[in-house]
């Protein structure tokens, strides 16, 4: 059964890794270590067959809102509301149990050092929906 693990962060999360509006606030070693740890985690999951996909998202300033107005989709920049924490990245895992999903979410939270959220994915494959 599939789950999505979502990580959250504010602007500083991107700034730390040099993915925001300036050079990384972390040292090169810290950045390398972080990506190495993430890579190792993903490799573990790939090896166990539990990895479906996972990505980090670009800085939230690049967000575009698309909504229907008068029956036509309209794109606008934003939202501009100062969000303390926005979606920073996500991974989709395919695991045998809810417990295992929670365990992996815990490892993920330790890696990214933030709160993560875990949600079942409705993939239509099981009767557990």
């Amino acid at each position, binding site marked *: 059964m599939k789950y999505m693990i979502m990580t959250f962060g504010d*602007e500083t999360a*991107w700034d730390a890794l*040099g993915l*925001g*509006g*300036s*050079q990384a606030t972390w040292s090169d070693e810290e950045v390398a270590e972080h990506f190495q740890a993430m890579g190792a985690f993903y490799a573990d999951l790939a090896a166990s067959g539990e990895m479906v996909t996972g990505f980090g998202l*670009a*800085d939230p*300033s*690049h967000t*575009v*809102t698309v*909504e229907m*107005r008068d029956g036509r989709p309209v794109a*606008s*920049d*934003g*939202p*501009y*509301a*100062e969000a303390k924490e926005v979606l920073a990245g996500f991974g989709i895992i395919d695991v045998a149990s809810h417990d295992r999903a929670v365990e992996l979410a815990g490892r993920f939270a330790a890696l990214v050092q933030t709160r993560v959220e875990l949600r079942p994915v409705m993939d239509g494959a099981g009767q557990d929906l």
Partner: protein
Amino acid sequence: MDLSPDIEGLLRQLAPQTLAALTRRYGHFDLAEDAVQEALLAAAESWPSAMPDNPAGWFTTVARRRLTDLLRSEQARRRREQSEAIRTVPLASDAPDEVWPSGERDDSLVLLFLCCHPSLTPPAQVALTLRAVGGLSTAEIARGLLLPEATITRRITRAKQTILDSGDASPCRTRPSGRGGWTWCCTSST
């Protein structure tokens, strides 16, 4: 600024490529152009003394960071403008009651107090005030607050319900016109 022909040639090549790449990836042609200009400046300053190992990668990274920085500034500015606009909504009821002939008072002050009901969140107070006191349509409020119309509709509906549920017709102590004001507020213009 004197640049070696090599560096100048490389920058001439990288600038349009990077502008195209940024625009394709993030949109914002105008800001991307500014970002590339700033990356050009940064390269012209630092490359003559320290050429990066991967000039194209260096240039793209710097331009991308500048674009993000420019977007953040612009969005922060819009947030400031937005909160300023909200703060300076003119209050038609600021004038003293005496300006109205006796027997005819402006109930909009009562309405205004009601819209600022303490059980409402500030966003709800703002939306309800713009609707009930300001007379703006949901679409106009949504445009002004840069929010989807559906959000404002829900916000106003919930605000009215919250006031209804609170059982307190008006938070102002004197309640000059009794429940009239709030009944109007909660039943008209959905």
